[in-house]
């Protein structure tokens, strides 16, 4: 942040709450609702205090029905509001898929631009929290595959705040996926004032020469831990935080791979038809002659995420990421 800005230490929960607070304050069209987001402030306390501050008309508990939450947001957006709705866990969002695929992503096109679907659908996602079934999945590639949606995943409190503000201000619908495993695990100084992080722009977190690693969400931190091992092994890693799943920042990824000649993608979801496959295809198209090793996907398995006793096999550890980095560099 530029000098002079007032800073405050925030975790991702604080940062998202702060972004909602800023947008609720400056735009009365912003409406926040979902299951347990009002009185309780959400099961992860992301919306804590907002109902008290902005009243039950603007921040409220809905009945328990994900399809209805998203479907009513379609109507609100068509009528000019900017709903920010919460799916309690991404694994419970599936009843809303009909509305998301059939209307959220389409009404703008169907009406030839007459109706904006200016809404944000927030959902905590990802594994590593020792949860019951349906609480651990990473289905971002699925949303990325639906034409008409923007899909955003922050990896830091700073980005969470700036990206959410951009998402709420976007006239297009944004699926805002929150890596719940690092909701409170990372704290950093974040500017108190309003700022935007642009949707569609990846960020190079560290420069390197041997291999490009693309990650996002909770995986960024795991890659950073793997990079300590890589450094000991004399491998120089360039780390890109994707930040936006769609529209994907092809330029940043391609420029990096043209420099390093190798690419590894780290994404927690299943292998097949996932983010790694998409990025490998982009690199094959844009940087084929620069490659010195095949693109490598580091992912979960093509299985259901195991319950906690077996989840350690599925989760991507720094060691697993380093193992793949080393194999790719030695290829």
């Amino acid at each position: 942040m530029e000098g002079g800005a007032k800073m405050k230490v925030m975790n991702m929960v604080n940062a998202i709450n702060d972004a909602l607070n800023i947008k609720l304050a400056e735009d009365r069209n912003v409406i926040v609702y979902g299951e347990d987001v009002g009185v309780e402030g959400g099961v992860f306390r992301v919306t804590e205090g907002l109902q008290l501050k902005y009243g039950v008309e603007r921040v409220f508990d809905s009945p328990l029905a994900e399809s209805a939450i998203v479907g009513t947001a379609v109507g609100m957006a068509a009528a000019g509001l900017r709903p920010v709705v919460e799916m309690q866990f991404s694994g419970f969002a599936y009843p809303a898929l009909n509305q998301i695929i059939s209307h959220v992503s389409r009404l703008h096109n169907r009406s030839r631009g007459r109706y904006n679907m200016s809404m944000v659908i927030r959902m905590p996602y990802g594994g590593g929290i020792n949860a019951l079934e349906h609480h651990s999945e990473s289905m971002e590639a699925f949303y990325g595959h639906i034409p008409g949606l923007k899909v955003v995943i922050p990896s830091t409190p700073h980005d969470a705040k700036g990206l959410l503000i951009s998402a709420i201000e976007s006239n297009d619908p944004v699926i805002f996926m929150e890596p719940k495993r690092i909701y409170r695990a990372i704290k950093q100084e974040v500017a108190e004032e309003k700022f935007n992080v642009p949707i569609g722009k990846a960020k190079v977190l560290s420069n390197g020469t041997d291999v490009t690693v693309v990650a996002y969400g909770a995986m960024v931190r795991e890659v950073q831990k793997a990079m300590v091992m890589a450094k000991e092994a004399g491998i120089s890693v360039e780390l890109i935080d994707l930040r936006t799943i769609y529209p994907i920042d092809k330029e940043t990824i391609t420029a990096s791979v043209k420099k390093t000649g190798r690419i590894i993608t780290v994404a927690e979801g299943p292998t097949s038809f996932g983010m790694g496959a998409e990025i490998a295809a982009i690199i094959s198209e844009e940087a084929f002659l620069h490659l010195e090793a095949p693109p490598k996907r580091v992912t979960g398995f093509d299985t259901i995420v195991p319950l906690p006793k077996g989840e350690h096999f599925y989760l991507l550890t720094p060691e697993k990421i380093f193992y793949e980095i080393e194999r790719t560099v030695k290829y």
Partner: protein
Amino acid sequence: MFEEYNPINEKIFRVIDNDGKVINKKWMPEISNERLIKAYKDMLFARTADLQTVSYQRQGRIYTYPPNYGQEAISGATAMVMRNEDWLVPAFREMGAYLAKGATLKELFLVFMGHEDGNVFKNANNMLPTSVPIASQLLHAAGIGYEINYNKKKQVVYAFVGDGGTSEGDFHEALNFAAVWKAPVIFIVQNNQYGISTPFKMQTASKGIAIKSIAYGMKGIQVDGNDIFAMYQAVKNASEHALAGNGPVLIEAETYRKGAHTTSDDPTKYRSKEEEEAWDCTDPLKRLKLYLISKKLWSQKEEDQLVEEYKLEVDRQFEEAENYPAYKLEDVFKYMYDEMPDDLKKQQNEYENFMKWKEARK
């Protein structure tokens, strides 16, 4: 019964009062003393297990757990009517019904410890595992009901959901399908007044849930879910209705979730102590106990002794679950498909190579 207690009349079905006194002789069911004592013991066992499970969670020995505390009569009454050949399609707050079906505590513990093997419930005939996505299981119940009619079987499906679940589309679609098909499904709504933090009055503007049965063309009844006699009578009548080919029944069981939604939840954020105390006097175990004591069928001394035995049994099964063999890599893969695709085999093999590399690095 379904005429007299037609939900349009807004009359809740109740047989005993909060002190265990019979207030509705006409509908007091005939239950043998032995059966009644067994029902009480089963509820007591479920409560002992439930409270102990919460404490295991506090000790960090299991993950998130949704307590049953205060809602035991609903499962308890269902258990008295449900037969081995009947189906149980549970949500996740029906421990007594699971156990009555033949599931073991050890299996339930395994699931809450994070192992899928607990979901096999190998001694429980015709019981689906827990369905976490709210209300989704009710459609499965309607489908099972279709099969029962198709093969002209004499079975009933007992399907559970909470009050929050009645807001999901799946609830309404399941009722509609079951009624159109005249499927023998008893839908039991445990109306414990809260969907996590959201109070019932914010779930629906309707006078209740039972009344919704009318629009779907099926029978419905609102029952005091903490009154074991009323619940037994309602479930029994509903099952006779369904077995006679008259289609589904919707039972709204009024109860109160005395505990938290799950062990991750803190109810003090959204409800008052006064409210909790007001519901305390409706406690289902207390009411049945007072009845049994008044008939000289039970004593506190007996109970204290039994609870100590139960605690040991719960601990025993918990330790068995804790000593369950460690999760293996193949457990992640082997149940994904009837026959494992080659690509999946390769993923497993590649991970085995990684594990060898990891071992060699040590």
